[in-house]
């Protein structure tokens, strides 16, 4: 059985503010294998970007990793001193951010930025690095790379810029990439191109990819597995086809029903009442209980642990044998 490239166990991230300590991530666990794309989906405030930032080591005070561990290729990286982490960042783990406009330094040519990153992590001279950069640009689909390598970021269109950002992330041959909303700022037609590029690269290079997004459609196209996050916890995690077409967790069900599709529409979209709780007021028990249509007594008291159901893990009491009996007993009363 292959060792997963990245393994996150019970991760906890807290933010200490004047008024209270907020737990942005509360017990998140997942693995990503080589060549696999894990989609992390959730709405604003669910904690998906914080998860990505924690893995890369970009959590700044007042935030901190307060529990759990992150293991990359068998080595713990969540408790490394800053310079050790810096060596890992870029070389073993890379990140692609949402806005290609701000991810690239507008004052430097694209080639300069690529070459600088390559030479930081790999022992190459200027010419070798330049050739490598041209290879990378070709790999991400930039036409005429020998010419465009000397261009400035503003001379590229949005989709091309994002490809350059991806090339930048691949510079040092990382084992693991976090892509944080890589297609949100792009047009729909370009989005499709970038999605297939990410998929192809992940597969060809055997990298583990964590794709963070709020767009379920992108996940359906790109990911092999998906984790649905809610209020800093994982509600459901499993193969993408299963979770998207037959969601088990009530939140996941509501989410899938709320998304309009191109097929003939029902007259009303499924509406989950209320909104995601603020970090300062997460309900006890299951975080989703105030909004859940299938809530019962236990949900207000016990926080559900992720339970294995049909090849996935669902954090919901409905799938717990013991509580299922209580539920049906209540229902039949």
């Amino acid at each position: 059985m292959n060792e997963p490239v990245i393994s996150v166990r019970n991760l906890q991230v807290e933010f200490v503010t004047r008024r209270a300590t907020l737990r942005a991530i509360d017990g998140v666990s997942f693995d990503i294998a080589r060549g696999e794309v894990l989609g992390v989906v959730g709405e604003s405030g669910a904690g998906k970007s914080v998860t990505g930032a924690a893995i890369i080591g970009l959590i700044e005070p007042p935030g901190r990793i307060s529990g759990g561990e992150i293991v990359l290729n068998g080595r713990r990286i969540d408790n490394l001193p800053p310079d050790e982490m810096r060596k890992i960042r870029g070389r073993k783990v890379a990140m692609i951010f949402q806005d290609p406009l701000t991810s690239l330094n507008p004052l430097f040519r694209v080639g300069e930025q690529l070459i600088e990153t390559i030479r930081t992590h790999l022992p190459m001279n200027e010419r070798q690095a330049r050739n490598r950069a041209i290879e990378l640009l070709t790999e991400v689909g930039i036409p005429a790379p020998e010419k465009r390598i000397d261009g400035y970021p503003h001379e590229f269109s949005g989709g091309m810029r994002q490809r350059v950002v991806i090339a930048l992330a691949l510079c040092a041959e990382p084992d693991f990439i976090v892509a944080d909303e890589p297609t949100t700022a792009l047009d729909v037609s370009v989005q499709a191109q970038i999605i297939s590029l990410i998929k192809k690269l992940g597969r060809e290079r055997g990298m583990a990819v964590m794709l963070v997004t709020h767009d379920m459609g992108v996940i359906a196209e790109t990911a092999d597995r998906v984790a649905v996050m809610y209020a800093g916890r994982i509600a459901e995690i499993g193969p993408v086809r299963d979770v998207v077409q037959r969601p088990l967790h009530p939140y996941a069900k509501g989410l899938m029903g709320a998304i309009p599709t191109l097929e003939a529409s029902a007259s009303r979209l499924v509406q989950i009442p209320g909104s995601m709780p603020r970090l300062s007021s997460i309900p006890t028990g299951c975080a989703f209980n105030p909004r859940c249509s299938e809530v019962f007594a236990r949900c207000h008291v016990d926080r559900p642990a992720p339970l294995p159901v049909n090849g996935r893990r669902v954090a919901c009491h409905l799938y717990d044998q013991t509580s299922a009996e209580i539920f049906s007993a209540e229902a039949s009363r």
Partner: protein
Amino acid sequence: MNPRPYVEVTDLKKVFDVSKPWLNRVLEQSPKQYLKAVDGVSFDIKKGETFALVGESGSGKSTVAKMVVGLLGVSGGEVTIDGVSMTDKNQAAQRAKLRRRMQMIFQDPFASLNPRWRVDRIIAEPIRAFSVVEGEAEIVARVGELLTLVGLHPDDGRKFPHEFSGGQRQRVAIARALASNSDFIVCDEPTSALDVSVQAQILNLMRDLQEKFGLTYLFISHNLAVVRHMATRIGVMYLGRLVEVSEAKDMFTNPRHPYTRMLLDAVPDLAMSGRQRIPVAGEIPNPITPPSGCTFHPRCPLANERCVVEAPRSIDGVACHAVVEGRKLVIPAAA
């Protein structure tokens, strides 16, 4: 006999002067540059229906919306709402009366409400501006009604916008849009900045309100799935031109223009049906120097020599030579 459409847009044009400052032009010997944001757009909206304008960035859909309500001046063409011209200088008085009946909902829920005003004052502004109701107590009551109508509590009026979430702010914006008893509402990407579950709430609310009050919507969006859910008729824009206008159900089952087809294919497939798709080609060209003839030809799988030279006219709701000539696309068999 067809009644006159409620909103008539005829050959609307908008040109922006994006030339560099005078000194630069003189030193670099470069000519003035113009951006044709909207290039001859025509469509109608019937009373009570939802007409959607769809397109990617640079398509000009937001510019069209702003010209329809009068936030932007037109460079050419006409807009008529309920018989009153928005462009004719002589009709300024009728336009002033018309203002009460049209409103706009914007994309950014954070910027569309004045952060220093309390919500009740924000909603009361159109009421006061158009003297819809007189007297403080009546205005207070009306604001409370509107808040309840959009799913908020009358007490919420005392709060500031930053105390609300994005979705709730959008509800406040909707309440403001309804405050003057308007019947034509232009919605510029109203849910693009919202989470999916919140989007569902807002879209449902908008449909309910439309049913209840007989509202007419001009709905701008880049999200085809949302448009599918909301619109009766849809117009697809590309680089300032309207390439196709169809009834909603027809457009999704039988897209005619190659760009429409490409847009539909590009939408991520949530149902994972593995449907046949044409791979998407290229990117939107620079609108300052658009391609000649049919602006879509560099990316069109059906383009021929005529498309490079001659811009197609809109016939029966589609502007495409290939459709007129009956050229069909052969989709490569799935690998």
